[in-house]
């Protein structure tokens, strides 16, 4: 269950310090396909490779900066997440996704 397709989002962008080491460490923890899909939905997916290279020492700084931007600097303030399997929508309000289920959904 969950997630992640965002639609009609109000997005906020804030620049934060670029830490290439953090980004590299995060890469192995990301579901890359979902990440790129989300980035594209928010209009910040340009320049992101379709797939990560097998080589763990990924150090192309331009791409790392684009990942940094999509991952850390862009935030959905108002919007929706949609579960691709059930179509159930989860609202995002004031930057907080609400993932609670109703009683009859549990």
């Amino acid at each position, binding site marked *: *269950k969950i*997630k992640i397709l965002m639609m009609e989002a109000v997005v906020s962008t804030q620049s934060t310090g670029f830490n290439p080491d953090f980004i590299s460490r995060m890469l192995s923890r990301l579901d890359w396909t979902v990440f790129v899909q989300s980035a594209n939905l928010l209009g910040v997916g340009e320049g992101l490779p379709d797939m990560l290279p097998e080589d763990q020492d990924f150090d192309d700084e331009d791409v790392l900066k684009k990942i940094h931007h999509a991952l*850390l600097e862009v935030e959905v303030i108002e919007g929706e997440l949609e579960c691709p399997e059930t179509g159930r929508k989860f609202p995002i309000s004031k930057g907080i996704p609400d*993932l609670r289920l109703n009683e009859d959904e549990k």
Partner: protein
Amino acid sequence: MKPTPLTPHLRSTAYSSVYPPAEDTFLLLDVLEEHVTSHVTSPLICLEIGSGSGAVTTFIKSLYPGAFCLAVDINPVASRATRETARLNAQDIDVVCSDLGSGLEMLYGKVDLLVFNPPYVVTESTEVSNGGIEASWAGGIDGREVIDRFLPRARKFLAPSGVFYLVGVQENRPEEICTSVPGLIGCIVATRKAGREKLWVIKFTRNKQESNSS
């Protein structure tokens, strides 16, 4: 010593259902500060369940500025309070409103630092999960109902070398909790008497034999 995050906004009636930082919070902060000095590797992903005021996650972010910190609470008012606490203390964290982290299964096996200051007060079962401020302290029978519901998930969330800190009181039977989760080993790392409460903090790690599977 790192300063405790400021939470002046909690005085507003808008946040009356949010548990303000108290002795249990401060004990946890002390343990976390201690954790920094005794652990060489910085966590990459930190998750707090039941963030309440957000003081703990905000504090964790100040200890580990390079980490991704996510705070979860079932009370949307607490979620907003958490976000505000982080903002007021100039820390960048992420907040989600969810029941004990459900919906965050993509973080299974990835959390390096997991923290939970649960509703641990011994109450009637019927007082548990009634929402509002009560949800922040009503723990049901032996104060264990919410703790026991979360413990199996804790095991799932933890990365192989991840650490999980849990807070409670003597009535919860901490020695039993330490060994009650298959795949987790717990030990009491701190205790403190606060008024009538005998608080403890348990530190869990994954059972090494199990950490090869998933």
